[in-house]
């Protein structure tokens, strides 16, 4: 029984990982997650803009989101892709890097209401709208 189960589980895991290659489905998922990161960043920025949050929270949480976006940017810039979608994948990598850049600004100015308002707008634009 175990002799059959182990290869089956390994096969399923490999199917889920898709061997590390970015396919269209994975790209769609990554885009969705990037939009989610940008919208969440916009919510944090809105808190800064309206003096509704703590400086520590805004600084720490915007940095967590920045790291997520940066990780996407790095991964999508270098991972192997399915034929025909490489340009889209690299474009999404640059998009992720832009989100990370805006979040970095928020991270560095967590008490600045003007920066909060500006980054909120930028992140909402990068996400293509958040409501």
């Amino acid at each position, binding site marked *: 029984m175990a002799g059959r189960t182990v290869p089956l*589980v390994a096969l*399923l*895991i490999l*199917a*889920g990982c898709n061997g590390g290659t970015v396919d269209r489905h994975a790209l769609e*998922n990554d885009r*969705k*997650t990037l*939009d*989610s990161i940008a*919208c*969440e960043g916009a*919510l*944090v920025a*809105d*808190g800064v803009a309206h003096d*509704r*949050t*703590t400086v*520590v*929270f805004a*600084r*720490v*949480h915007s940095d*967590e*989101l920045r790291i*997520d976006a940066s990780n996407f940017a790095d991964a999508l810039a270098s991972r192997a892709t399915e034929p025909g979608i490489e340009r889209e994948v690299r474009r999404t990598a640059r998009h992720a890097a832009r989100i990370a850049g805006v979040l970095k600004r928020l991270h560095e100015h967590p008490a600045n209401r003007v920066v909060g308002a500006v980054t909120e707008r930028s992140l909402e634009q990068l*996400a293509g709208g*958040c*409501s």
Partner: protein
Amino acid sequence: MSKVFGLALGILAAVGGFVDIGDLVFNVSAGAMFGYELLWVIPIGVVGIIVFSEMCGRVAAVSKKAVFDAVRERVGFKAALGTLIASEVVNLMTFAAELGGVAIALQLLSGLPYRWLIVLAALGLGVVIWVTSFDWIERIFGYGGLCLLVFAVAAVKMSPDWGEAGAGLVPHVPQSNAMVYAYFVVGLLGAAMTPYEVYFYSSGAVEEEWTPKDLGLNRANAIIGYGLGGFFSIALMLTGATLFLGRGIEPEHLGTIALGAEVPLGEIGLVLAIVGILFAVGGASIDTVFSGAYNLAQFCGWEWGRYRTNARAPRFTLTWIVLLALGILIVLTGVDAVVLTEYAVIFSVVALPLTYLPILLVANDDAYMGRYRNGRLANVLGFVYLVVILVVALSAIPLMILTNVGQG
């Protein structure tokens, strides 16, 4: 008066033990992804944990045996050893996730480096366990965890669609994304019925020397305590549905969960939410460490218990210290606490039958229970839940793989 106090403590302990990092993550994520559609799973999970906690509290009060004593006696050495290994692995994963959660909450409050806070959090928990009595641990983390009530206020303030929320309480098949929906059903049930809760509950009952006279207290503790925990879970899911679904936000961090109170309630809501999370996951950290030590000590027949001094139960004490150290090492590898939580919850689902079947068998055993054995209602509910548990246990790992851990 002491009964009322005992009830209050039990309720607070149940609240602290029920709402842990798994509940926080799965409830808010489920709301963010499916809106109110998964609300129906919460009462099912809550009734399940009430049924089995009441049973093992009763077994403890009547037979003076905690769950693992009974497991070993009832199912034999080999099966008990399998249960022990599974439960210790899941306990350790859960503890590491909770410890990571404590460090994250401290970081959101202080801004200090995460790795330093992991060590600080573990040392703090170690000191609390070493020097503080069982009662005070319950009080500190139970009362602190009540700050999570802020999510109920936040949910109401964001004016959810109560009609849709009511409809969400009726079990139904989803319109789309059926696999991910099923994954969340499994995760929510697993988070509500995590095995360490009953290990801790039954061992606590033995430690507090419950007798058959305390069976009313046992029932009240289980119903009201876990009922309150379910109330918190509903508030968290409503928050996720109301705030995050429309914005397309998928919660990936504990900080995201705290945003659920910040947006409607401002700074005070944010601070209360983080403090509530800190105490809830802190309390759960202690529960899981104790559960791990209880299980091993009960399986091996060692002296155990917090009401004994550390010197009088040395192997029990050494076990929780080792678990604490292992937890630190796991979190220090840099593993994401939220990701670890998801794996811990799903693996705990696989271990559920190994925990709950022996409880059901012992609670029905005349030799242990005499006239306090299960009645018809407890048996019907017990067997129905056992079937549910078996189904979710068999489907947990395949769903985790097929949905890419709920990502779709």
